[in-house]
């Protein structure tokens, strides 16, 4: 007699898997990675490679030898964490910096909470912030290494646009004077920024990544868009009050890792809210905190801290901001 398989409905399943989603995020990072290889050459490849490999190995070792659970590194999530961390480091970082950051990201921020899906804070950002407070000199040394493709380029451009602005303001210069003195141009920021971490050389490449994630429906637009909107509103408010002292909103958006943070870090599934309303509040909070830290805090760049702080509010946001229930909020006349 024919044996029939019996199981509850549904009997069909969608094609998406954790692996395919993570792979899509890695694909979305590809344009930025390619641009950074063009600008920074071997050092970009080295950082990305060491980051991804270390994260995968650390996760494998912990799953296999310490917690003795099923090894799940083939879901690409560890590799993605390593890649993201590498793309958020200064291009001239030594290999052991990304190694240490990766160990912290996976070992401390991810696996000690119980692995994929259990962690409260974005692992790549925890790794980055750990490095920032432990190795402040290396982490703020934005010397641009020579690229294979761009030999002869002036390798001494030292600081990011953000720190230049900050120092300038501290000296009592106005924004216009700082812009004029440093030849800042928005066009350059769009295609190849003046200085910054590996992955944020080109705003355009990051926006390509965003478009890919949205088209493939990997993420919804709510988080990145509410971060952008909130930054424009809050930094725009300060700028309108005193344009000589505060950078304009476009400058704020294009510098200091806002794009890579809003597109790739804040949208991390595990550490972001589940409901639409939660996502918007989370995004607005990140934007507000970023503007506050940048303009009034101790660090020139603020989005890493802003995202981590908002990560901590996610459980609360999930329990207060529920999705719209059917039959609850409609006027049936």
């Amino acid at each position: 007699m024919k044996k029939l398989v019996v199981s509850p409905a549904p009997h069909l399943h969608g094609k998406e898997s954790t692996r395919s989603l993570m792979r899509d995020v890695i694909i979305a990072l590809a344009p930025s990675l390619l641009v950074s290889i063009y600008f920074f050459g071997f050092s970009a490849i080295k950082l990305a490679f060491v980051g991804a490999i270390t994260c995968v190995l650390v996760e494998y070792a912990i799953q296999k030898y310490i917690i003795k659970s099923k090894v799940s590194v083939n879901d690409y999530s560890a590799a993605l964490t390593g890649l993201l961390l590498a793309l958020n480091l200064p291009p001239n970082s030594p290999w052991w910096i990304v190694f240490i950051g990766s160990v912290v990201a996976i070992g401390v921020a991810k696996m000690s909470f119980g692995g994929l899906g259990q962690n409260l804070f974005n692992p790549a950002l925890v790794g980055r912030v750990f490095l920032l407070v432990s190795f402040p000199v290396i982490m703020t040394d934005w010397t641009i290494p020579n690229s294979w493709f761009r030999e002869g380029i002036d390798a001494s451009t030292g600081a990011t646009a953000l720190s230049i602005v900050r120092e300038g303001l501290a000296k009592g210069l106005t924004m216009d004077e700082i812009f004029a003195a440093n030849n800042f141009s928005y066009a350059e920021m769009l295609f190849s920024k003046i200085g910054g971490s590996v992955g944020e050389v080109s705003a355009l490449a990051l926006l390509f990544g965003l478009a890919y994630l949205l088209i493939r429906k990997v993420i919804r637009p709510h988080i990145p868009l509410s971060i952008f909107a909130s930054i424009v509103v809050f930094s725009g408010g300060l700028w309108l009050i005193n344009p000589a002292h505060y950078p304009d909103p476009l400058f704020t958006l294009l510098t200091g890792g806002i794009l890579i943070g809003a597109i790739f870090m804040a949208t991390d599934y595990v550490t972001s809210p589940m409901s639409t309303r939660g996502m918007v509040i989370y995004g607005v909070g990140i934007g507000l905190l970023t503007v506050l830290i940048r303009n009034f805090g101790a660090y020139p760049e603020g989005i890493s801290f802003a995202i981590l702080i908002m990560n901590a509010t996610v459980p609360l946001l999930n329990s207060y901001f529920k999705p719209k229930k059917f039959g609850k909020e409609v006027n049936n006349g």
Partner: protein
Amino acid sequence: MSRTFSIGGIHPHDHKISAGAAIEDFPLMETAYISVSQHLGAPAEPVVAKGDRVKTGQLIAKANGFISANIHSSVSGVVTSIDSLPDLAGNLIPHIVIKVEGDEWIESIDRSEEIVRDIKATPKEILGKIAEAGIVGLGGAAFPTHIKLSPPPNKKADALLINGAECEPYLTSDYRIMLESPEQILIGTKIMMSALGVNRAFVGIEENKPAAIKAMKKIASKHYKDIKVVSLKKRYPQGGEKQLIDAILGRQVPSMGLPIDVGVVVQNVGTALAVYEAVQKNKPLFEGIVTVTGKCMTEQRNFKLRVGTSFDTVMFAIGGFPKDAVKLISGGPMMGKAVSRLEAASVKSTSALLLLTDEETRRGEEGNCIRCAKCVDACPMGLEPYLLNRLARAGRTEDLESNMVHDCIECGCCIYSCPSNIPLLDTIRLSKAQVLKIIRSRPKK
């Protein structure tokens, strides 16, 4: 512009590979196995005994209690036994077993092809004829139709919705009847409008069935102007009662409520056709359209199948159980039931027999929840399946209730969209039953 419901939903591939197959009469089986429990509610009471000779269309089991439905013989022949036999899930249900001899119909049935347009019956007579014919909802739930058409006196319907969405992948039985008998469906709709005392009706059809929309619109706009054919965006689960009302009228049935709470009654197109046949042609419900389909089969069919035809017989007729198939589903792939034994027989509400291969139907290995919120986005009721699953596994009944687990319509969108293959609906379905039991056991206010 096409309409759709407002929350959640998914877009599975529709696989309507049997859409081109015209309805054909399925050859008469040798033995009919007619269940006395083909509807929601109390099983019917057999009114025949072993050895009795019955005709096609003859009453063989009587509705028993308020929510129940008559059962008629789908064949002519001799009752050989009344026995408990397994249904498709393996539950033992009394079946009336009839050895088929010829095909002699009771005289009162009008077997001519002629369409009877003039509705002579009064609303009361209509309800009586529908109850007499044992009509149940053919959209899946098999709720007795005459009860649905008799709302309590304090509730008034102002519109009738006819469900032609057929949003489940693979199914084409509703599509075929809309194409082949559009006018009969519209007359059935008029009959139900008269029974309900409403002066407008809407037929909702998804855009992936343009020929059905065209056929229905053509006749409705000429002769049945108070029935509006509405084109809907393709989106699952559009055919869910609550979703359909939301899509067509923009009204949302409240939690634990019924469509009548927002002034609506919903019936399936198949039910409308059965109502036409019962009221205009005196034909009880003893056969229905069943799509027999699957990628593993060379031919796709839409059969007119007598109730009580065993699945074995159907498989034999299509050339045997396909080698690659591992699962036989009664109904659609999203909400249909997996058949556990081929000896089980079709019932009034059987709409399809779908054969799936291991590759098509196998669930992937379960992984950790990555909190992607895809289940939250997909849930058409605005629930949080990931949370309900967690609460269900922890047995937190109170939290399950406050998170509205009882609103779940079991459409399967959550499992379908989960990238970690978490069996969300499996755990939610169990805890929903538990919570509903608790809610119903409470004293009424």
